[in-house]
């Protein structure tokens, strides 16, 4: 196990911890946009963790999963913010 592998695994561990902190805001969040923001942060963290693990264990195929996950994460935020207000456009 080389030093770069150790660095990548450690960074992935810290990102998982940051995701657990975001779970507090998802459970607690007083309003709906609070929860959506926290879910967006958690999804970004998951994408970064997948990319870090793909580099750490030498499995480049996992990067495709990370790309699709990032796409779905963006789509989720846009869709929720579009269909919770009575208005045609969002941006």
């Amino acid at each position: 196990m080389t030093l770069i592998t150790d660095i990548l695994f450690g960074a992935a561990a810290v990102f998982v911890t940051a995701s657990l902190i975001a779970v507090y805001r998802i459970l607690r969040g007083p309003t709906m946009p609070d929860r959506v923001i926290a879910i967006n942060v958690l999804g970004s963290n998951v994408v970064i963790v997948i990319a870090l693990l793909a580099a750490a264990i030498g499995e480049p195929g996992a990067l495709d999963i990370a790309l699709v996950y990032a796409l779905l994460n963006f789509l989720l935020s846009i869709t929720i913010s579009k269909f919770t207000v009575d208005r045609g456009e969002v941006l």
Partner: protein
Amino acid sequence: MEIQEIVVLLLAAGGVFFAIVAAIGLVRLPDVYTRTHSASKSETFGAVLTLTAVAITFGWDLSSLKTVLLLVFMFLTNPTAAHAIVRAAADQDIEPWTTEDEES
């Protein structure tokens, strides 16, 4: 230590720092607008630094190109999603947080 290890260590440390800042801001700040301010900017910058570290780890490869593609995609979509959510919050008439003497 080789030069690649030093660069990866510095970039990963910066990315981890900004992720922690985003998480703390998400918990500690008072309302949805300030939380979005913390989450969108710090999280995007942490993602950019960490994915740069991943791309340097892969070296000159197709995987590195995919990582850069993911980086550019997150750099574009993360602030856009935050903007859309906050605009929906403003349309739902969620009041911004203010201190007492600012309201007079």
